[in-house]
């Protein structure tokens, strides 16, 4: 595939991700911070986000598995994930976090468990979308083009 086609694909895919709410304006902000001197900035932030999220999702599963759930701890973890998803523009993940915190406040274990499932789902989705996005950018670079739209 040539550079022009690849770039068209990238634009269409990016529009889709924004349109479906996977990403929001903050992601655009991060892309503006990427340049020739920092060509992998967004991917680097995403990697940190993935590592952080996986750690937090594990902690959440552990904490919610207990006989007596420590909701303060659970809430603190969700608060962290809400923050990092907001910073990268992972809008759907962030929204689930907001609902999750309400359940924590109500000390509703079932609600929390449902949210955890939803979080895992949304996280997996945004991770695969972002990886596909970065892969497209790499292909454009390999074909001699520049991925910046």
């Amino acid at each position, binding site marked *: 595939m040539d550079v022009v086609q690849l770039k068209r694909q990238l634009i269409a895919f990016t529009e889709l991700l924004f349109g479906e709410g996977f990403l929001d304006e903050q992601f655009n902000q991060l892309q503006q911070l990427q340049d020739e001197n920092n060509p992998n900035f967004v991917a680097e932030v995403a990697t940190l986000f993935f590592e952080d999220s996986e750690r937090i999702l594990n902690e959440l599963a552990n904490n919610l598995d207990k006989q007596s759930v420590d909701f*303060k701890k659970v809430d603190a973890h969700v608060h962290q994930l809400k923050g990092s998803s907001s*910073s990268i523009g992972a809008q759907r993940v962030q929204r689930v976090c907001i609902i999750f915190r309400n359940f924590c406040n109500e000390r509703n274990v079932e609600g929390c468990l449902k949210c955890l499932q939803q979080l895992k789902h949304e996280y997996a989705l945004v991770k695969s979308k972002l990886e596909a996005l970065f892969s497209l950018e790499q292909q454009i670079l390999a074909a001699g083009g520049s991925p910046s739209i």
Partner: protein
Amino acid sequence: MARNGAFSRRRASEGADWFDLCQANVEEAHVLAVDDSLVDRKVIERLLKISSFKVTAVDSGLRALQFLGLDGEKSHVDFHSLKVDLIITDYCMPGMTGYELLKRIKGSSALREIPVVVMSSENVVARIDRCLEEGAEDFIVKPVKLSDVRRLKDYMARGCQPDSGGKNHQKRKQLHGSATSSWSPLPSVSSSRSRSRSQSPLVDTPAAPCSPSSLESPTRRLRMTS
């Protein structure tokens, strides 16, 4: 020093142009960023560097105080060689919160002149007021954007400006305009409104670590914005 040299040259030619002077100084400014989130630290560091600041990023209030030479222990590092021109800190951090860090800095004769900006994902009037009252220059709602960081230059240039009184009051009115005026510790149902910076959806109620204290109840302050 270059600063004085530039000043006398300008004075000699066209009179002191305050804004230009301040811009020139600000380009070498050193910002200390404090945030426990790795993702946020990376982002704020890049935002600052791209805005021509020098950056030191630390992950806690304690480390910030150590860096500033205020932890009671003798640091082997000469404080003056690491001059900090502005501190930007997250509010919600485990251990020492950004608010507590702010108080420590403003309570220190050595450090109180350093402008401090607080960042938070929670856009709440009571919290903003607490920070401003304690001497914070500004309160930035996360996620932090490039335009937020560009504004920081104003706080460093302040040292050059003849009058900085009354700004806190204006800043408060500005911030109240976009913040929520009521804070309820009761659980609220999340709405499906889209989250935008101009609105303030009060849909999340933190249980910890930054749970609302009695200080943040709506009866404490209810300001009308003009």
